[in-house]
């Protein structure tokens, strides 16, 4: 059995979530990688990858041509795998539609080549499902699989032509400029909730994030209220994180937020309401006014 992994490369480096997808796919047998746009060399350096399919012409990861290309190659593979990232979640279900198979999103555990565990109901239940499809289309939750190293492999690279995309045209992309680590791969994450009261107050998290080299996240309520952009959202419908340390500030701990962070190793909660559900999952809690606690925390670090 050979698996094909959609590998995402950003600024010349393979994204950590894709390295986790390669680690997961290695459980099935040999691993080929496919890279859209630049970055085939970075994918070829991943341990465990034997062959890289490079599609330099598809720089924008549009779902239509990428899924067409994957579908054309699918018969050579038992499993087609991607990270459960925005890219993976856009392209792989479309591929599954083209192949007429049922995709298996957000896999957190692989039982065997056909059997997978995935969270449902915002992670309040774990479903073990067995697929009868001949080609399995999976997205992998990076926080549940240790990534392969970035270096050490020496795969061959085969360049392939891109199909045309007429129905879908890339217009532009606006990326948030940030020197901070990515939410999904940061060792420390500090997140603000509705208790931050407004967007300007999110700045109070920055000096602490600087000291801990942390990524900054937000609850859905904070995003809904316009305090933070959606790409900072942690939760069922945002990003799933499992850092070594998660600091939840002024957020109550709604079910859908817990779904995105409860696998963190150590959880700290700072909240004025002693009854807030976040304290039920926190290893350390401070009951208090975050506007007093945050400056103290900054000083203590």
């Amino acid at each position: 059995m050979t698996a094909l992994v959609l590998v995402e490369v950003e600024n010349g480096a393979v994204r950590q979530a894709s390295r986790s997808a390669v680690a997961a796919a290695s459980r099935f047998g040999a691993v080929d990688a496919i890279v859209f746009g630049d970055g085939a060399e970075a994918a070829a350096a991943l341990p465990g990858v034997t062959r890289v399919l490079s599609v330099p012409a598809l720089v924008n990861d549009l779902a239509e041509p990428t899924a067409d290309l994957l579908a054309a190659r699918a018969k050579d593979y038992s499993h087609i795998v991607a990270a459960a990232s925005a890219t993976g979640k856009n392209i792989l279900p479309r591929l599954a539609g083209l192949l007429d198979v049922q995709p298996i999103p957000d896999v957190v555990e692989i039982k065997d080549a056909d059997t997978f565990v995935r969270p449902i109901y915002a992670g309040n239940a774990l479903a073990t499902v067995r697929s009868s499809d001949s080609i399995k289309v999976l997205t992998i939750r990076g926080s549940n699989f240790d990534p392969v190293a970035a270096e050490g492999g020496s795969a061959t690279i085969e360049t392939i032509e891109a199909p045309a995309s007429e129905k879908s045209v890339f217009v532009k992309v606006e990326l948030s400029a940030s020197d901070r680590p990515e939410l999904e791969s940061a060792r420390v994450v500090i997140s603000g909730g509705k208790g931050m009261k407004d967007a300007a107050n999110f700045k109070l998290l920055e000096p602490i994030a600087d000291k801990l080299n942390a990524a900054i996240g937000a609850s859905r309520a904070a995003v809904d209220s316009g305090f933070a952009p959606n790409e900072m959202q942690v939760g069922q419908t945002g990003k799933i994180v499992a850092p070594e340390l998660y600091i939840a500030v002024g957020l109550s701990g709604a079910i859908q937020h817990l779904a995105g962070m409860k696998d963190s190793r150590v959880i700290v909660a700072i909240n004025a309401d002693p009854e807030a559900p976040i304290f039920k999952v926190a290893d350390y809690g401070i009951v208090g006014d975050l506007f007093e606690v945050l400056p103290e925390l900054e000083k203590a670090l």
Partner: protein
Amino acid sequence: MTMKVLVPVKRVVDYNVKVRVAADGSGVETQGVKMSMNPFDEIAVEEAVRLREKGAAKEVVAVTIGAQAAQDVLRTAMAMGADRAILVRTDDTLEPRAVANVLKAIATREEAGLVCMGKQAIDDDMNATGQILAAKLGWPQGTFASAVTVADGRVEVAREIDGGTEVVSLTLPAVITADLRLNEPRYASLPNIMKARKKPLETVEIDSLGVDTASRLTVVSVAEPSERKEGIKVNSAAELVEKLKTEAKVI
């Protein structure tokens, strides 16, 4: 503009309910639990109604698949402004692939110019049906939409991606899946709820569509995730930092 917008909606366990896993491990308890429209579908209904209000669409048709009780989410969609609704009746639980087969049949029959749906249902958390449907129809897709503009036979969609926002321009017909920030859905007013009762609701037996609704996944078991233990309260930031250094050894 003569475009018809099809809005698939799903009846799910209300987002405020903390579900419990059934004792026999076959699924989660849904008996006697409050049900409502999937929140992302509400956003999709709102967007479709706004397109009609702006004159970019002629008609908004809501569709759901399920038992008779699923009618209530169709009434909600019509109270929000959908013009009419279709219930595809079945007592089975369908996977996204099967749902997409049904929706393809309905979209084709209705000659829909746009399908606007939630990006994800909050029960199975699949985030797949819109993409599968787009593939099966051979239409382009604008997933995780945070802004939608229809003009000159195309739709421009701003999409939520991991590091920010991407804008794509799609030919119509197309499938759009709604993300959180696309809009804030209106509340259905009482007069509109009353009016919705008189709007047409057609029932279609699923077998009459002649599509493949078989499941490809077998649920082996459903289990509770491991619970975290509640920790301790500390009295100051200084004490917290001390604990993180010496006890948790995380900083």
